C-alpha cells in the first residue's frame, strides 16, 4: 500500500498537444480516488502516466515516496484494469491471472495459491480453464480484476473498467468494486467520465478539464460546493441550471435579476459576494432545488416561466421551463400535472443557490 | 493508423529489421540500381570497356521493331488474360454466390489451380494442344481446324493465353466470391422489394459494390500477365515460333542470358520496372481511395 504523489505533472505529445498541464495531486494511502471529467480532459493520460505507459513530460510522479518517472510499468508495483479488459485471448483464465506472476518468477505453488484466492474472492473459480471468449462481459471483467488482485500491488489503476458492461451489471459491479476496496484497502485510482460512478465509488473525486484539475474533494463536497461552473455543471443529473444575472440593491436586500428572474440573495451568500451592486454573475440552481408552484402576486423572490416539456420518469418528473430565454429544468412531484404552455413560478431553495463569477466561472 | 508507443529499445527494432533489410538491399535495391546504371552504358562484347551513352539504349529499343512488336504483343496478351480470367471468374463467383448447397464444394474444385506453377500449367496445356496427340488439338482437327502451335504463331499465342487464363481464374474467383459475399444481404432484399429482378440487381447493386475488387484484380492480373507468365512461355513455346509469343519479360531474359546484350537487357529491365511502379502507384491510389470511404 502506498501514497501516490504527483507534482506539477505535465504531458505534451510529440504533435504539440498538451494533454495534461501541471497537475499536482496527492493520493492518500488506501484511498479510492476517482479522476472524473469529459473525454479528452487528460484523466486517462494522467492515469497512464502513473502506470508508466506514457512518459512524463514535466514534473515528478512518486509512488510510495519513490520517484518512478523512469521506472518500467512492471517495476512500479501497480496493477491496471483496462476498459476493454485486455485479457490474453489465447490463454485460459488461470494463465491470464498467472502470467504476470510467472514473469516475475514467483514459485509455482505460490502462483497457484494466489490465483485460487483471487478466484474465490471474485467467484470465478469455475471458469479457470476457460478462454476469455467463452466468458460473458461481466465474467471477463472479473478476470481482469483477478489479474490485478493476484499481483497484490501497492496501487490499483482502473481505466473506465465498467463502461463496456450493460447498465444493470454496471450498478452491481460498482457495488462489488466498493466492497472489494473495503476488503483489500489498496490505494485505488479510478478513471471515469460517469459522474454517478465517481460519486458512488470514490471517497475522493478529482474533477479534470482540459488537462487541469478543477476541484478535489469528497463527492458530497463537490456536489454542495462546486468550485466553478464546470464542476457544478458536470456533477449532478440533470445538470445544474445556469442563468446570467445582475445584482441590484432593493429594500436593503440584494436581488439577483434577469428577465423573468428575481431572487433575493440570502445573507451569508451576500457577505461572500461583497460589494456587488451593478455587478453581473452566473446563477446556478440544481433542478432538485427548484420548487414549482402556480404563479401568485409575489414575484419578488421567484422565477416566472412557461412550461415547455414535461418528462415523466416515474419517481419524479422533469419540467423544462422557459424563463425569459433561459431554459431551466426543475424536478417536480410526479403527482402534480403541468400542461404545456402553462405559466408557472419556480422558487429556489435559498440555501442551495450558487453564484459564479461571470468571466472566470469561479464560485463566489 | 499508428500504435501508441509501447516498447522502447535503442537496438532491438534495428536487429529485428536487419535480416529483411539486408536481403532487400543486397538482392533487390542493388540489382535494380545496377540495371539502372547498366541501362545508360554501352559495353563491348567482352565486357571489358563500357561507355556512357545516355538514353541510347532506350532509343535503340524503341527503334527496334522486335521490341516494339513485343510491347504490343504483351499489351494484347495482358488485356486478353485479364479480361478472360476476370470475366470467367466473375461469372463463376456470381453463380457460386447464388447456390446455397454445394458452394463450398465448387469452391474447393475451383481454387486449386492457384497452386499450380505457371510452368506446370504450361506443360499441362502443351500436352492438351500437342498437334499430334493432344486431345484439344485432335478435337479441333475433327472440326476442320489444323491446329499447330509449333508452326503457327497465332496458335502459339492462343496456347499461352489459355494456359495463363486457366491458372488465374482461381485467384480472381476467390476475390470475387469474397467481394460478393461481403455485400449485405439486406441491400439485395431491399432492391428485391423495390421490384428489381436478379439481372437488374446485379447491374445496379452488385457491380458497383464489387468495383473496388474488380479494379484491384485488374491491376493484379495485368502484373500477372506481364511477369508471372514467364514460366508458361518458357516451358511451352520458348517465345516462338518466330517470336510470336515473345512477351517483354521473356525478352529481358532472352536478351540478357542468351543474347548477352547487357545494355539492352538492362534498359528493358528499367522499362519493366517503370511499368510495375506505375501499376503499384495506381493501386496505391486505389487503396487510399478505399481508406477514404
Amino acid at each position, binding site marked *: 500500500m502506498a501514497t501516490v504523489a504527483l507534482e506539477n505533472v505535465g504531458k505534451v505529445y510529440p504533435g504539440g498537444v498538451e494533454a495534461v498541464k501541471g497537475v499536482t495531486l496527492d493520493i492518500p494511502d488506501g484511498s479510492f480516488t476517482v479522476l472524473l471529467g469529459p473525454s479528452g480532459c487528460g484523466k486517462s493520460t494522467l492515469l497512464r502516466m502513473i502506470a508508466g505507459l506514457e512518459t512524463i513530460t514535466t514534473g515528478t510522479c512518486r509512488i510510495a515516496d519513490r520517484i518512478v518517472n523512469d521506472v518500467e*510499468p*512492471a517495476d512500479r508495483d501497480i496493477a*491496471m484494469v*483496462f476498459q*476493454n*479488459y*485486455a485479457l490474453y485471448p*489465447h490463454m485460459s483464465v488461470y494463465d491470464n491471472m498467472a*502470467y504476470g506472476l510467472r514473469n516475475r518468477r514467483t514459485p509455482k505453488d505460490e502462483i497457484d495459491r494466489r490465483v485460487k484466492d483471487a478466484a474465490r474472492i471474485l467467484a470465478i473459480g469455475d471458469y479457470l480453464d476457460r478462454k476469455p471468449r467463452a466468458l460473458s462481459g461481466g465474467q471477463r471483467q472479473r478476470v481482469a480484476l483477478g*489479474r490485478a488482485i493476484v499481483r497484490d500491488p501497492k496501487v490499483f489503476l482502473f481505466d473506465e473498467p465498467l463502461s463496456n458492461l450493460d447498465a444493470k451489471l454496471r450498478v452491481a459491479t460498482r457495488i462489488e468494486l466498493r466492497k472489494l476496496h473495503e476488503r483489500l484497502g489498496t490505494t485505488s485510482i479510478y478513471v471515469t467520465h460517469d459522474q454517478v460512478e465517481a460519486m458512488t465509488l470514490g471517497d475522493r473525486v478529482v474533477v479534470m478539464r482540459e488537462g487541469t484539475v478543477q476541484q478535489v474533494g469528497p463527492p458530497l463536497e463537490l456536489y454542495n460546493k462546486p468550485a466553478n461552473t464546470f464542476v457544478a455543471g458536470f456533477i449532478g443529473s440533470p445538470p445544474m441550471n445556469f442563468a446570467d444575472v445582475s445584482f441590484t440593491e432593493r429594500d436593503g436586500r440584494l436581488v439577483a435579476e434577469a428577465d423573468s428572474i428575481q431572487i433575493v440573495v440570502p445573507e451569508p451568500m451576500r457577505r461572500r459576494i461583497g460589494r456587488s451592486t451593478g455587478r453581473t454573475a452566473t446563477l446556478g440552481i440544481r433542478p432538485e432545488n427548484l420548487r414549482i408552484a402556480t404563479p401568485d402576486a409575489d414575484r419578488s423572490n421567484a422565477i416566472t416561466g412557461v412550461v415547455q416539456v414535461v418528462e415523466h420518469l416515474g419517481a419524479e418528473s422533469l419540467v423544462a421551463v422557459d424563463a425569459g430565454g433561459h431554459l431551466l429544468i426543475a424536478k417536480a412531484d410526479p403527482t402534480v400535472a403541468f400542461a404545456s404552455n402553462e405559466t408557472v413560478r419556480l422558487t429556489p431553495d435559498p440555501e442551495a443557490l450558487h453564484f459564479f463569477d461571470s468571466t472566470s466561472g469561479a464560485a463566489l | 493508423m499508428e500504435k*501508441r*508507443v*509501447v*516498447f522502447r*529499445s535503442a537496438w532491438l*527494432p534495428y536487429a*529485428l*529489421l536487419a535480416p*529483411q533489410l539486408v536481403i*532487400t538491399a543486397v*538482392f*533487390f535495391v*542493388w540489382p535494380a540500381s*545496377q540495371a539502372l546504371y547498366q541501362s545508360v552504358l554501352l559495353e563491348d562484347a567482352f565486357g571489358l570497356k563500357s561507355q556512357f551513352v545516355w538514353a541510347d539504349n532506350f532509343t535503340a529499343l524503341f527503334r527496334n521493331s522486335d521490341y516494339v512488336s513485343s510491347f504490343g504483343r504483351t499489351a494484347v496478351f495482358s488485356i486478353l488474360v485479364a479480361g478472360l480470367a476476370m470475366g470467367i471468374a466473375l461469372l*463463376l463467383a456470381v*453463380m457460386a454466390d447464388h447456390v446455397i448447397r454445394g458452394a463450398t464444394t465448387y469452391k474447393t*474444385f*475451383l481454387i*486449386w489451380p492457384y*497452386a*499450380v*506453377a505457371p*510452368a506446370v500449367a504450361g*506443360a*499441362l496445356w502443351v*500436352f492438351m494442344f500437342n498437334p499430334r*496427340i493432344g*486431345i484439344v*488439338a*485432335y478435337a479441333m*482437327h475433327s472440326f476442320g481446324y489444323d491446329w499447330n502451335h509449333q508452326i503457327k504463331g497465332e496458335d502459339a499465342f492462343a496456347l499461352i493465353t489459355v494456359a495463363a487464363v*486457366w491458372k488465374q*481464374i482461381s485467384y480472381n474467383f*476467390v476475390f470475387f466470391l469474397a467481394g460478393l459475399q461481403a455485400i449485405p*444481404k439486406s441491400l439485395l432484399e431491399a432492391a428485391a422489394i423495390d421490384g428489381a429482378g*436478379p439481372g437488374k*440487381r446485379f447491374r445496379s447493386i452488385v457491380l458497383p459494390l464489387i468495383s473496388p475488387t474488380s479494379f*484491384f484484380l485488374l491491376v493484379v492480373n495485368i502484373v500477372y500477365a506481364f511477369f*508471372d507468365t*514467364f*514460366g508458361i512461355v*518458357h*516451358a511451352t513455346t520458348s517465345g516462338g515460333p518466330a517470336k510470336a509469343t515473345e512477351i517483354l519479360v521473356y525478352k529481358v*531474359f532472352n536478351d540478357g542470358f542468351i543474347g548477352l546484350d547487357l545494355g539492352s*537487357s538492362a534498359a528493358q*529491365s528499367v522499362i519493366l*520496372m517503370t511499368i*510495375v511502379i506505375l501499376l*503499384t502507384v495506381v493501386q496505391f491510389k486505389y*487503396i487510399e481511395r478505399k481508406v477514404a470511404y
Partner: protein
Amino acid sequence: MVERRPWLTLLAHVTLAIGVLMVAFPIWVTFVASTHRPEDIMTAPIPLWPGTQLLANYSELLFSGLKNPSAGGVPLWRMMANSLVMALIIAIGKIVLSFMAAFAIVYFRFPFRMAAFWLIFMTLMLPVEVRIVPTFKVVADLGMLNSYAGLTVPLLASATATFLFRQFFLTVPDELAEAARMDGAGPLRFMKDILLPLSTTNIAALFVIMFTFGWNQYLWPLLMTTDRQYMTVVMGIQRMINVADTDPQWPMVMAAVILAMLPPVAIVVVLQKWFVKGLVETEK
C-alpha cells in the same frame, strides 16, 4: 438468395459444373496419360480412361528418373526433395523475417522507421523477373550458385507478408501490449507469448501462399542451378519436355506434372479456409 427462382439455381449449378469441368479436365487427361505406356500415347486419339502403368510409371520416375540427356537420370524424388527444401525455407524464412520486421515497425518508434518501411515496400515493385540479370550477377559474385542458400535467400524478403502482419498487428488492441508490459513482459517476451499465438491464423494463411510461391519458383532455380543435384521438380519438367530430336516421354512427363502439383495443391485444398482469408487480406 433473395427469392426462389429454380431456373436460376439450375443455371448456376450448370455453369459451375462447366467451370469445374474446364478446370479439372486437363488434370484428368494428364493423370490418364500418366498411367499408360509411351506407345499408347503416340497417336491421337489418346485414351481417356486410366491404364495399367500407374505404379510402374510413378515408381520408375520417382526412383530412377528419366534417361534422357537433359533431365539426366535424376530421380524425381530428389527433385521433389529439393523443391520441398526450397519451399519450406522460403515459406518459413519469409514468415519469420516478415513477422520480425512488422513487429519492429509497428511496436517501436525509432529513427528511419518510415525509411525502412518504404524500403521493404519497394520490393513489391521489383519482381525477380524484371531485375533477373543483375540479381543473378550478385548471387554469382557471392558464390551462392548451386546451393540451397542461393535458391532461397534472395527470395526471403517479402513486402506482402510484412504488410499482412503489420495490418494484423495494428488490429491487436494496444491494451494487450500494455497489459503484458504491466505483467513484466519485455518486447521479445510479448512477441513470443502473446503476438505469436494470436497470429497463428495469419501464419497458416501465409504459409500456404508462400509455400506455393516457393514450390512454384521456376526462372530462379533455372538460373541458380547448373548442378543437377539442386534441380527442382518444376524446372525439371521443362527439361523433360524440351528434349532434342525425339518426342517427350509423355506418360513420364505427365506423371511428373501430377507429382509436381500435388504438394502445393494439397496444401491449398487442406488449408483452404486460412488460405482464402490470407489471400483476400493481402488486398487491404
